[in-house]
């Protein structure tokens, strides 16, 4: 069991700015330089202005907010896909993102090949995948289709396999972005049960979802983001209620 109390994720004064670039060609960049850098080549957009938060090991945190509030950006900073423009992120232990499942899938490979490829992408070793393989296939309910090319899968099968690989990667910290809406209802229930099981094992969960009812059953703590700032951090039901009252107004 993971001892509670250690910090799993620590963000300090995070700032992230995106450049909305207009030009993609060397010609325009050169012309801009020759003209003495007049005008702005790009437009900037602040995704996160000043975010500080700490997540302890074993906590289950829901990141809430409307579209464009910076939730996904924050997850990407924590996973290391993006680097902050200011402030620092620190994590402890292996972090795996269930960010848009199936990103590492290749359509022309069989389910089996994709399990290995995706498992390795998510940081598993060869031995871990070998050991987990049967369990992954069983959980995904793919059965005999595991040797079929993924392009022939139905979208449900595809998501089930991807989710199944992701939950078997066994990291200390799980980042989950909007993937609880996987498959049909029985499978969804199974996913939620699996996620609860992970949290009982002491895994740290960091969940982004718009399904407010669902996150309040899975998570204990809620963090509300608006325009790149944390405006509320507390018990999940209170935060959900706050978000609901804000959107209703």
């Amino acid at each position, binding site marked *: 069991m993971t001892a509670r109390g250690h*910090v799993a994720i620590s963000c300090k004064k995070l700032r992230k700015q995106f450049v909305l670039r207009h030009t993609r060609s060397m010609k325009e960049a050169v012309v801009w330089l020759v003209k003495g850098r007049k005008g702005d080549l790009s437009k900037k957009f602040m995704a996160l202005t000043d975010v500080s938060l700490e997540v302890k090991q074993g906590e289950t945190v829901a990141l809430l907010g409307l579209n464009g509030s910076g939730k996904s950006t924050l997850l990407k900073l924590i996973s290391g896909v*993006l680097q902050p423009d200011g402030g620092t992120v620190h994590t402890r232990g292996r972090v795996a993102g269930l960010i848009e499942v199936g990103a590492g899938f290749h359509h022309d490979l069989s389910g089996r090949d994709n399990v290995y490829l995706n498992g390795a992408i998510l940081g598993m070793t060869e031995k871990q995948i070998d050991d987990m393989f049967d369990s992954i296939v069983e959980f995904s309910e793919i059965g005999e289709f595991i040797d079929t090319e993924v392009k022939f899968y139905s979208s449900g099968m595809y998501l089930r396999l991807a989710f199944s690989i992701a939950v078997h990667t066994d990291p200390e910290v799980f980042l989950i972005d909007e993937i609880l809406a996987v498959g049909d209802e029985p499978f969804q229930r199974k996913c939620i049960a699996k996620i609860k099981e992970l949290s009982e094992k002491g895994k740290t969960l960091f969940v982004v979802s718009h399904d407010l009812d669902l996150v309040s059953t899975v998570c204990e703590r809620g963090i509300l983001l608006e325009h790149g700032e944390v405006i509320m951090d507390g018990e999940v039901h209170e935060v959900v209620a706050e978000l609901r009252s804000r959107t209703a107004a």
Partner: protein
Amino acid sequence: MAGSTEEMIRPGQGRGLLDVYDHRFLLKLLVRKEIKVRYRGSVLGLLWSYVKPLMQFLIYFVALGIFLNLQRGTPNYAIYLFAGIVLVNFFTESLGNATRSIVDNRDLIRKIYLPRELFPVATVWVSAAHFLPQLVVLIGACLIAGWTPTVVQLAAAILAFVLVSILATGLGLLFSAANVYFRDSENIVDMILMVVTWASPVLYVWTMVKDVMGSWYWLYQLNPMTVAVEIFHWAFWFPTLKDDQLELASMPPDLMTVWLPVAFLISIAVLFVGQLAFRRSAVHFAQEL
């Protein structure tokens, strides 16, 4: 549990090519995937890796060897030609695909953190896998022509291959990173690849260049590809020649003692610069793609 005692780390801080070594299992899978996917749905499959260079060889041989009559001055011109072509093919395929590798894998790079060096490095490995069948054809042709290489020559050929791999990886890192910001890079690389075949003695003989450049010949020799191609000639073409033919053929002076080390230095410098540029820009890949 180990997790609670581990140090806090900053995510997304790579160690460059060293990370690739730690992820060699993933590298292996990526390479295998590319090889599987390359000829998907084709009847001939991997045979295309033989057919294409053979076609290319035939064109050059007929046009240059027969029509321009280069084979008169160069004994076993066919082998001379093919030895250079396979090596240049390896280089052009590596560099061309490496340049596109980051942009092609943007879906993955935008969503999951991986050492990004994996992608250009994987393309070089894939090209090496496609180089092998061509090498088999080359060796087959050499054996028919009575090839008797020395151990030193074989070792030199391996070194030349390593040299080209290093150069292609270095340039691949550099241009794949540049390609994220400016898609012009693809065109620049296409141009480089066009020049490469002609900037090393693949189709003609090095003495023709020396006759023209005179005391400036060392400039031509600074190109690591030139050195690598010459070493391939020395390893594959030279040992097929008979005693009377050897009078017509010659190798540049100091090839192994001076030019091979120089070429290695240049390639390693390129790799170093490529890695440096790649690392500096890699942190922004996800938002720029």
